[in-house]
């Protein structure tokens, strides 16, 4: 009987783990559009020094309306993701490691659990996006391990989400929204971004203006 109880407990734990990972990976959010949570301006610098490769991101919302979804949701979270193209196993970076910093409210370094292996996500998120202010430049920086290549395409995106439960501020309690728009590309992969002739590849530096009069890109 003791063995049976242990087996039952093991199955229950496995079951809970599986169900949690399946059904809690996303959360239900109110509908909104991209101009209510995506930064108006952003910049990314990806390079390496004698210690490791690193990624810096800066972002800015030019008025309160651009942050209105975060303001309306007390338990909102925000993740400015940097994705390194890895479908050919030649990404510039693999995973975040060592030093990281950010002035985002309640910043956390995101986990890569169950991410697509084709796109390596390097993310420092905010677990309290309601405290974001317009007219202020926020930054994130993290060191990262080498991927398989010396250069790769990079994609930036802005993801909105919520904390579940609301009192928990860890990376494991931040879930992306299930409803569109939930994850908006601010800098796409494999696409020439006017006025630049070519795709943006790491290492390098690029900045974007998203729906700030127009959406445009330029080198730093």
């Amino acid at each position, binding site marked *: 009987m003791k063995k049976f109880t242990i087996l*039952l407990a093991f199955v229950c734990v496995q079951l809970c783990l599986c169900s949690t990972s399946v059904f809690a990976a*996303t959360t239900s959010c109110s509908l909104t559009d991209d101009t209510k949570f995506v930064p108006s301006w952003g910049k990314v610098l990806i390079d390496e020094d004698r210690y490791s490769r690193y990624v810096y991101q800066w972002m800015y919302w030019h008025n309160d309306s651009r942050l209105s979804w975060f303001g309306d949701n007390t338990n909102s979270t925000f993740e400015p993701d940097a994705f390194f193209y890895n479908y050919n196993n030649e990404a510039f970076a693999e995973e975040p490691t060592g030093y990281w910093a950010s002035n985002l409210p309640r910043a956390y370094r995101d986990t890569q659990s*169950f991410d697509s292996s084709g796109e390596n996500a390097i993310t420092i998120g905010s677990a309290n996006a309601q405290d974001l202010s317009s007219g202020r430049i926020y930054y994130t920086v993290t060191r990262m391990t080498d991927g398989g290549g010396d250069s790769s395409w990079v994609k930036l995106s802005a993801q909105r989400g919520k904390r579940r439960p609301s009192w928990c501020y860890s990376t494991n309690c931040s879930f992306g929204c299930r409803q569109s728009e939930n994850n908006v590309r601010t800098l796409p992969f494999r696409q020439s971004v006017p006025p630049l002739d070519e795709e943006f590849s790491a290492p390098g530096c690029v900045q974007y203006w998203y729906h700030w009069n127009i959406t445009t890109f330029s080198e730093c």
Partner: protein
Amino acid sequence: MHYQFFKKNIYIAILLVLLSIFFTTSSIFWTSEIVDDRAHLKHVEFGWPLQFIIQNQERLDPPFPYKMTMVLETPTQLRYIPFFLNITLNIIFIILVSGLVNVLKNKVRGNTKKIQP
């Protein structure tokens, strides 16, 4: 005597259901779907034997065709009817497999007894 027999069967039934739920749920992590274009990314299905999870993986940019697997933090929908049908089918599958194992075990035991002088 009757009570013990009933209690033992209840435990076996609970174990069967739990095992089946575990097997059904875990199938979303070892099944995949090949997508050919961007439109297909909006509707990628996982699960075995019937597909019961639908994901909108539009946020990904794979080269086509590409074998997509389950990814978290993407819009996900659960289809309840195929999910519960899978649980039932897997219970039957587990019963059949355990029955087959028992038959084989008994055969092997029988053969061993025959060989003994």
